[in-house]
């Protein structure tokens, strides 16, 4: 479990010293996040990478399985991403990069050809090749596996062209398959090992190609991994990686401060703020990929059916004020539903400005000079933002009652019958793991999609273009037109994309990427 004794002893002396010179502690609290935001990893004195050391990280929940094709949540993904590789990956700057595939091209509209890396071995010595790709993807798509991973739902099979070339075939065009392969759709699992020990044993004793090897799993306590010295991309710096569940936010911050933990994952910005100013701890603020917005029911009769009303709502909400006041500055405004890092974003499109008079003008033009009454639902995790929005809308005469649900219930209701149980407006977050605009729009815009409360044939057509074409330029054009249309028609109230807030020990040197999937391959301890 690291060296808790040494950490505490040092911590006591430094803590005492810093408490007496309080100004220094305050300055540290301000300066280190700024440095982190600039992308620098060199904060403490000696920042040269060194081999060895143990890094202990916490998450709010415990791991459920070690089988990457059977897991369905971030908790398991954060652990397994260190033991398994996928065909492609996202680097620290969120760019799509080769991983087990070195290059790829689309040979026709429904086939992607992947050229595979040579000389890669699984932790048990098994070789990686095109047969492994075929086995892995077929296992994923096999109904018996009951995999909750669904992005490859249109993949029909894999053709082995030669030992290091594989074709992934779908039943319809899929321009973002390479991006989807960076997720666990593209995870590579060992055929010989699984056939030898069976699914159940594989789920308890995993073998992958990743930078860390499985060491032990005590359910509810921790998953321990060891550095893979034979890793194809080079040995990782860390010798030991331990990931444990700590459900209570205050306890995880306390454990970080006492040296038991090195990184705390999964905290909201308010919870992470508790660690501010502690000696030996810094809070990393990284732009995330989760975009928040309010879904409006544009179809049912009522005020929201009128585009002018929807535009008025967008003018009335002061997003920068919400970011500053409620989110502690840990977010950035977005013009529509696509975040800054995603393919397809039109950078030239500006978000709605905050303009109360224009909002009131539009409302009167629509016949609601005296405003109207409506309801805004949200999950308990975002209830503060919902309240802020309700407050801002009251300035133009729109009286909003807020309803709060626990996260699980909210999620279930949102998926049922286009979220009708949640009322005319609800606050929702959306993450597109593929970092492609398509994933952000896929369930929300086209009139026949699961969460859509919008009906616009032009939008439907543009969605078809960007989902159906494998040509970048065609897709970009469609996205640009779509975003302009979405802004003008305003079927949503557009808000922000949230930062990831990660308190960590100053001994840790690591660049988290925006996906928030905590791959520790480049991390080292000072």
């Amino acid at each position, binding site marked *: *479990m690291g060296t808790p004794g040494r950490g505490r002893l040092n911590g006591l002396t430094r803590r005492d010293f810093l408490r007496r010179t309080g100004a220094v502690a305050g300055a540290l609290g301000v300066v280190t996040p700024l440095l982190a935001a600039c992308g620098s990893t060199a904060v403490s004195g000696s920042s040269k990478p060194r081999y060895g050391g143990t890094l202990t990280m916490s998450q709010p929940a415990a791991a459920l399985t070690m089988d990457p094709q059977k897991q369905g949540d971030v908790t398991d993904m954060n652990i397994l991403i260190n033991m398994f590789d996928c065909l492609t990956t996202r680097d620290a700057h969120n760019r799509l990069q080769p991983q087990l595939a070195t290059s790829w091209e689309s040979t026709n509209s429904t086939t992607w050809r992947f050229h595979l890396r040579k000389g890669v071995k699984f932790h048990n010595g098994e070789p990686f090749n095109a047969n492994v790709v075929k086995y892995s993807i077929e296992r994923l798509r096999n109904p018996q596996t009951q995999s909750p991973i669904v992005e490859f739902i249109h993949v029909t099979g894999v053709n082995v062209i030669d030992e290091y070339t594989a074709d992934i075939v779908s039943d319809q065009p899929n321009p973002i398959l390479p991006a989807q392969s960076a997720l666990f759709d593209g995870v590579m699992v060992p055929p010989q090992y699984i056939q030898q020990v069976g699914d159940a044993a594989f789920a308890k004793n995993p073998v992958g190609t990743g930078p860390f090897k499985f060491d032990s799993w005590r359910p509810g306590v921790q998953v321990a991994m060891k550095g893979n010295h034979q890793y194809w991309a080079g040995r990782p710096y860390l010798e030991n990686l331990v990931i444990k569940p700590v459900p209570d936010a205050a306890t995880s911050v306390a454990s970080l401060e006492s040296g038991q933990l090195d990184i705390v994952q999964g905290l909201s910005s308010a919870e992470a703020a508790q660690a501010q100013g502690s000696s030996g701890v810094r809070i990393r603020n990284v732009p995330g990929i989760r975009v928040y917005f309010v879904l409006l029911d544009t179809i049912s009769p009522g005020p929201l059916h009128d585009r002018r009303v929807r535009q008025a709502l967008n003018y009335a909400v002061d997003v920068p004020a919400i970011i500053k006041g409620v989110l502690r500055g840990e977010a950035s405004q977005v013009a529509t539903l696509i975040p800054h890092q995603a393919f397809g974003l039109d950078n030239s499109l500006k978000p709605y400005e905050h303009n109360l008079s224009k909002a009131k003008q539009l409302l009167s033009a629509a016949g609601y000079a005296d405003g109207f009454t409506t309801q805004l639902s949200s999950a308990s995790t975002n209830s503060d933002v919902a309240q802020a929005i309700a407050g801002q809308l009251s300035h133009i005469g729109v009286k909003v009652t807020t309803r709060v649900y626990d996260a699980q219930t909210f999620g279930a209701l949102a998926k049922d019958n286009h979220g009708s149980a949640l009322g005319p407006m609800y606050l929702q977050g959306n993450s597109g793991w593929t970092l492609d605009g398509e994933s952000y729009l896929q369930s929300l815009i086209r009139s026949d999609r699961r969460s859509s409360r919008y009906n616009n044939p032009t939008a439907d057509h543009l969605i078809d273009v960007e989902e159906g074409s494998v040509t970048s330029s065609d897709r970009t054009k469609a996205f640009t037109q779509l975003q302009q249309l979405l802004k003008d028609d305003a079927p949503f109230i557009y808000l922000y994309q949230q930062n990831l807030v990660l308190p960590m020990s100053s001994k840790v040197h690591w660049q988290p990427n925006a996906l928030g999937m905590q791959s520790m391959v480049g991390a080292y301890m000072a």
Partner: protein
Amino acid sequence: MGRFLLTRVLQAILVLFCVATVVFFLDRVTGNPVAVLLPPNATVAQEHHLETQLGLNQPLIVQYRIFMTGLLHLNLGQSIYYQQPALSIILQRFPATVELACGALVFALIVSIPLGTLAAVKRGSAQDRILMSIVLLGQCAPTFWLGIVLILVFAIVVPIFPASGIGGPTNLILPSITLGAYSMAVIARLLRSSLLEVLGEDYIRTARAKGRSSFGVITFHAMRNALLPVTTVVGLEVGSLLGGAILTETVFAWPGLGQLTVQAIKDRDFPLVQAIVLFFATTFVVVNLFVDGLYALIDPRVRRQ
């Protein structure tokens, strides 16, 4: 004694049978359990498949028979998320909760017995009042708050103990105090009033008249009788310690059954939650059966009932 135990065991079995029946009907009272078991976007075909697998398309009485037979074979269902039998997951986590409950009970007894005794003996004095105020604090302090305060003081400000997690003996101290504080208060107060009642009895005066020292009177004569109601309460407390560890386990990231319960509820892992309910009920009944037997052993009057 034998007849007494037999009666108690039969009663326990009846209680467990009733609990299982209630659990069975609670599942079905709110509608189709399959709706709870599957994710919201499940297809109708998937629903029918699971219904058939779980035998939900059969008559209620047949389902009941299958359910009860399953319990007799220790089949408490399969966890959706872990994809393992619920009972094996529970048994994995149970030792940690037992460890915590034992630690809490030990703490509670170590503090409450001297405290309660001293308060009774010095009844009415300033000492009595101070001690009972401390006890009251233990009863009023919310578990959650107490745990976090102890972490703050004894893991950060004065770093003696670890802030969280299971491990060596030092890891057990703060969670034991947190969980045991309420039980400590209950037992101390009960012991005090029980002891006061006993100390007023005739046989105590006789013992004193015979020249027994105060200490001897208290420990030998008075305690044996004063501890009787305390034993019953300890039995109840063990039940609530096992179940109430939920908050303590969450605060201290203690990998026990309480934490599993919270995660299972959050995940809507219905079969696992149901299995945990049955497991806790059984544990509670067994523990109290044991306490009843212990009571009968100590107090001959009970055996004659």
